[in-house]
């Protein structure tokens, strides 16, 4: 198909290029919100799309997550054994439903992941206050499907990592400098659709419920 490539480039290169005024391109969107305001806006946006938001701190977040698991009647919880949060939960395993660690390649346990996992718990890279958004980067510790396949996604967000806008987050966290992961993801609520007569329905393909725990 390099013939197609050559033909396309030949046509594109045959043209005199339009000159473009670029001055407005660099506008950078950011707000001067303090931490409390960022939390307030983030929470408001998340709740508007039917996500649950819980407040916790370093001393009681384990209790909060145990409480959520109990309230949802989870029989199991899928998580990473290697993240800071995953380790702490695993050390207190008795307080939680049966813990499953994402240790094998998906091919080795696809059926269990698809049909038996009740909820997946992940850390987050941070959040965006303007739109009520979580940022997740896939990694060997926390694969993509952890926040995708189970019907409930529980995400822990460190409130020191809340940014006002996506533009600010990308710049402050140095996404370009770090190099992007296989899959960078923004999540702004549970899976939804309005494809049937514009009636909102949740849990089409992704999680039906999104639970955010602010720490």
């Amino acid at each position, binding site marked *: *198909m390099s013939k*197609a490539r050559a*033909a*396309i480039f030949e*046509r*594109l*290169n*045959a043209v*005199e*290029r*339009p000159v*473009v005024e*670029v001055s*407005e*391109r660099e*506008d950078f*969107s950011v707000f001067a919100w303090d931490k409390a305001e960022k939390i307030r806006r983030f929470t408001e946006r998340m709740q508007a*799309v039917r996500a649950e938001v819980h407040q916790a701190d370093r001393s009681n977040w384990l209790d909060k997550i145990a409480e959520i698991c109990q309230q949802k009647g989870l029989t199991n919880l899928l998580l990473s054994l290697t993240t800071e949060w995953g380790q702490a939960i695993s050390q207190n395993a008795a307080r939680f439903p049966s813990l499953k660690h*994402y*240790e*094998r390649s*998906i091919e080795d346990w*696809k*059926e269990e992941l*698809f049909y038996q996992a009740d909820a997946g718990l992940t850390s987050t890279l941070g959040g965006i206050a303007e*739109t*009520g958004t979580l940022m997740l980067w*896939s990694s*060997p510790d926390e*694969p*993509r*499907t952890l926040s*995708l396949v189970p019907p409930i996604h529980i995400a822990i967000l460190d409130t020191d990592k809340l940014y006002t806008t*996506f*533009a600010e987050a*990308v710049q402050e966290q140095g996404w*370009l400098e770090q190099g*992007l992961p*296989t*899959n*960078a*993801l*923004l*999540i*702004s609520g*549970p*899976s*939804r*659709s*309005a*494809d*049937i*007569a*514009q*009636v909102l*329905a949740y*849990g*089409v*393909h*992704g999680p039906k419920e999104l639970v955010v725990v602010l720490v």
Partner: protein
Amino acid sequence: MTTEFRIDVKKALGKSEVRAHFRKAMDTLMINRRNQFPDDAALQALRTQAQAIRANVLSKLPELLQQLETNLTKNGVQVHWAETTDEANQIVLAIMQKHGAKSIIKGKSMVSEEMGLNHFLEERGIEALESDLGEFIIQLDGETPSHIIMPAIHKSKEQISTLFHEKFPDIPYTDNVDELTASARRILRDKFYAAPVGLSGVNFAVAETGTLCLVENEGNGRMSTTIPPVHIAVTGIEKVVEKLSDIPPLLSILPRSATGQPITTYFNMISGPRKADEKDGPTEVHLVLLDNGRSRIYSDSELLATLRCIRCGACINHCPVYVRIGGHSYGTVYPGPIGTILEPQKSGLSVHGELIQASSLCGACGEVCPVRIPIPNIINRLRYDSVRKDSENTPTQDAGTKRKPLEAATWQAWSWAASTPSVYNFGGKTATQLRGLVPNNLGAWTSVRSAPKLAEQTLHQQLKALGVDHE
């Protein structure tokens, strides 16, 4: 003149129930969009920025495509080029054959509609299954999308309930939307579980990082690009974006213009297949870059603006023609104002040239376009292309084929009369004197309107009577 388009339009206008769905849906979408932009100055600034980003891309498209290819390849993504939709289909087929795959599960992709991929694969014994809820529904009914964002918008809840019950008799009849959605989830979960290949479109392809970005609400895009061992993305060559920092402004304006959401549920940025130490994701990722007429559009500095489009559908939602005739009447992949300018340019004026008449030039599409494509101007330009004498000076195919000698002579005569005052004044006075002779039946015009009556005096005469010296 009765053409297929006109027959379809007439049929669509007669379906009052479907028209009511469109009216209600478009009203909701317009209100939702307006609520997202309470500050007009901020909206205009964001539109200018989005326009600058997209126009910039087009000013260096070949370089950026090369950069995109280099970085994607470095990331482990296999890049393919297709001049025509048939070539693109063949590329997808070859990848599937290499893996012995008999089925493909699809996330929402308008370029795959453009390719007619489902039909192409099914003819070769391969099952192509849509997983976007709206696309899934219309596929069950053997239909095509009637809107680029909300493909099943023409169907009522009752129609969808009946359709589900017909196609899946084991599932008890229900018109509860949550239950219908849950059924679709169950059915498609099993399909995702087993699918050997997944397909998606691309909203933005970032040249700087070699990243494919996908905007969606349901998770069909995430599932299609994560679960099957092979992921094939298809997109047009114009979808490239230069820098990662260009993404936040575009992501800010796209969903707000499209559905009036501040952001979609998922924004998925894919920069390569599964790495050695990763536990999921496809082991192979392919990108098919489709031309299909785009590089021809690229050669004209005015028509070029067509390629800025980010496929939000705002022009469609605000179009007084679309809301009345619906998406299917257009007979094209892309309906509404963007289809009106894009389709005749892709396939030639002799195929879809009639669409450029299906506009009142009210200007709403141009006003709401997030990248400021002057759609009404381009419609006018294509109307001109269809009758111009110097057809060699436009890349539009079949230019000049609508030119009629009598019409051309009439306009030439009019031009001469209007710029020769003695003739113009004489003509005006004569017309007022013969005003009684205007027939009541003026063909199509008077079929739904009363015939116009000429004034007793010309405007010049009236102004003179009012004492205006300098007309």
